[in-house]
């Protein structure tokens, strides 16, 4: 909040860095106190720790990547921007840790508010439209999620529980009325799909990403997406030993397949770089949903996919941001020759493309491999074949666009010239992230495996 008071750009930046530092310290603190519960509503459980670590990494990069967008003291937007940014990060941090459904819900709501401010920071008509859609659809989604929570509580009538902590829910899940649980889960899934950018309400994220500043886009489509996933997953896990477990899996698979299908369809028509990335988020989230739904090794695959996707997607967003600064546009039709104009970034983009498409040596290939393995193990051939075909479509669409952007002349206004310049050092973070992703193909560090296994421990058929 101090950001709003302090109206000096430089000072704000320092404050921002200070905040990041605090974030790091908090992260370290959480790591040290892993598993403990504090303030009775926050538990530092593995999932939270994992995603918090990711968030800390990415937000650091995002904050730094954000600096070049506000260079002039003149317009005071930066103060709103930074205030909202801190708010968003803080809200997400809280939401990761929250151990109570309602609390999670409140914090998710908070992210809607802050995120909408960030989305609007450009103040264009597009920004307004996106913001309006974001707020409205997110609110509807939130309302639906709330309905879900209410149904949960309705079903818990008479169990004697008076709070909706995940632990409590887990303990009574097997005793609850399946129909209520089904409806509750359906509502929760649909509601939080706004945040997770999963099928039914995926549209908000896409619009938001297309107008938001790239660093914000990076945060929305990594941290926030993870948050959406986590809030669904916590409910899923809590209900996992209830009779509707199988049903939930089927629903998730359905949602996932639809997401991938829709993503492929959108991707084949994509004309805007940032939207293109959003589509790929949709696709990956679809895969995650399928992986969770199919179970088995799929759980591990899902979390690995989430982690690596977060790193890759964020660095892609940063890179696209730099590209926008170099070419002065995000439209695919009038951008091109990027390899000539900014080689370093182009390489980052190329690697990022290969990484996000799960083309070896990309860590995502491991998770896709495992997902397919789970599908084969589950003998769900139809899903397998459909997913494979769709993946090929996605690869075709994305690689065609990115490669033309790198190599060939733009279709329109052929006389392309650099609008601005980007220092090489600004790409460092992307290269670090991508290196991690590539490394993960050959070697997943044991602590990662441990933490994921801790998260998914206790799930049936695992």
């Amino acid at each position: 909040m101090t950001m709003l008071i302090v109206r000096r750009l430089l000072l704000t930046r320092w404050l921002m860095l200070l905040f990041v530092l605090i974030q790091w310290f908090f992260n370290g603190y959480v790591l040290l106190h892993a598993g403990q519960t504090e303030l009775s509503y926050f538990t530092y459980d593995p999932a939270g720790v994992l995603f918090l670590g990711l968030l800390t990494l990415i937000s650091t990069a995002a904050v730094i990547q954000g600096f070049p967008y506000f260079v002039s003291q003149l317009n005071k937007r930066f103060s709103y921007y930074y205030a909202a940014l801190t708010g968003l990060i803080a809200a997400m941090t809280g939401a990761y840790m929250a151990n109570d459904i309602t609390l999670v819900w409140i914090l998710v709501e908070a992210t809607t508010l802050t995120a909408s401010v960030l989305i609007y920071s450009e103040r264009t008509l597009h920004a307004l439209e996106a913001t309006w859609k974001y707020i409205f659809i997110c609110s509807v989604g939130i309302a639906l999620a709330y309905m879900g929570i209410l149904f949960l509580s309705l079903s818990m009538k008479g169990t004697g529980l008076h709070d909706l902590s995940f632990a409590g829910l887990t303990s009574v899940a097997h005793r609850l009325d399946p129909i209520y649980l089904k409806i509750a889960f359906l509502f929760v899934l649909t509601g939080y799909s706004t945040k997770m950018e999963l099928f039914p309400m995926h549209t908000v994220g896409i619009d938001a990403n297309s107008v938001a500043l790239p660093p914000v886009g990076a945060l929305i489509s990594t941290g926030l997406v993870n948050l959406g996933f986590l809030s669904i997953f916590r409910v899923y896990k809590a209900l996992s030993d209830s009779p509707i477990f199988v049903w939930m899996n089927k629903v998730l698979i359905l949602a996932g397949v639809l997401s991938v299908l829709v993503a492929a369809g959108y991707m084949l028509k994509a004309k805007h770089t940032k939207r293109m990335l959003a589509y790929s988020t949709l696709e990956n989230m679809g895969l995650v949903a399928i992986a969770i739904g199919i179970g088995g090794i799929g759980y591990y695959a899902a979390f690995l996919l989430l982690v690596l996707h977060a790193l890759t997607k964020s660095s892609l967003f940063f890179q696209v941001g730099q590209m926008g600064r170099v070419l002065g546009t995000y439209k695919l039709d009038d951008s091109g020759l990027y390899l000539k104009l900014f080689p370093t970034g182009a390489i980052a983009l190329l690697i990022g493309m290969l990484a996000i498409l799960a083309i070896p040596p990309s860590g995502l290939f491991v998770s896709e491999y495992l997902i397919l393995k789970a599908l084969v193990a589950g003998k769900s051939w139809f899903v397998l074949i459909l997913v494979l075909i769709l993946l090929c479509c996605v690869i075709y669409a994305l690689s065609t666009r990115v490669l033309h952007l790198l190599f060939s002349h733009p279709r329109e206004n052929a006389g392309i010239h650099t609008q601005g310049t980007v220092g090489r050092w600004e790409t460092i973070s992307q290269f670090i992230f991508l290196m991690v992703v590539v490394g993960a193909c050959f070697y997943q560090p044991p602590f990662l495996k441990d933490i994921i296994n801790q998260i998914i421990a206790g799930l049936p058929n695992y």
Partner: protein
Amino acid sequence: MFYLLFVLFAGTLVYLSIAERFRSYAKLIAVQGFLLFAIALIELKTVNLASLIFVLAETLIFKAIVVPHFLFRIINQTKVYRVHPKAFPAFYSLLFTMAGLFMSIILSNMLKNPSLDAVFLTIALFTLFTGVLLIITHRRIFSHMVGFLVVENAVFFFSLAVGSEMPMLINIGILLDIFVSVLIIGVLMNRIGTQFSDLESDNLTSLKH
């Protein structure tokens, strides 16, 4: 008496679906606010006084007075009175609403539960359906907002259903109300109203592909 309120509430919903003018929307929202106030008054006997007062205040002041007031202001500001840009046979939306009613009845039968009043559930679901239908079938942002307010009322209904066990949930629901309505109405009034001449949501369809 209790059921009368419900029937009245259902009536407002039906009227909403066929209303031609935004002013009547605003009025209906206000009416629903009062009805909810009454229902809450009757329903929440067991909860402690503080939260009861909080709830009643919220329904009465916020739902019944503040929000409709804002709505009227928006209408005056944007000079858009008619719900449908061109004449639209109310018959269909009525049909939809009826379908919604039947569906909610079926659903509430599916969800039959000793600890829960079927009629209560039916109305709540019906409210939800109407709200969503308002959003889906209408073009103008204003109606979307009204639809959303109706959805919130539905949420409120449900929260009342568990209110006696978990009053905390009601408060959170109210939180949602205040906070989102303020947010949406704020954006609508400050920005969109000034940026776009009439509130056709068709103006807000530039973000594709």
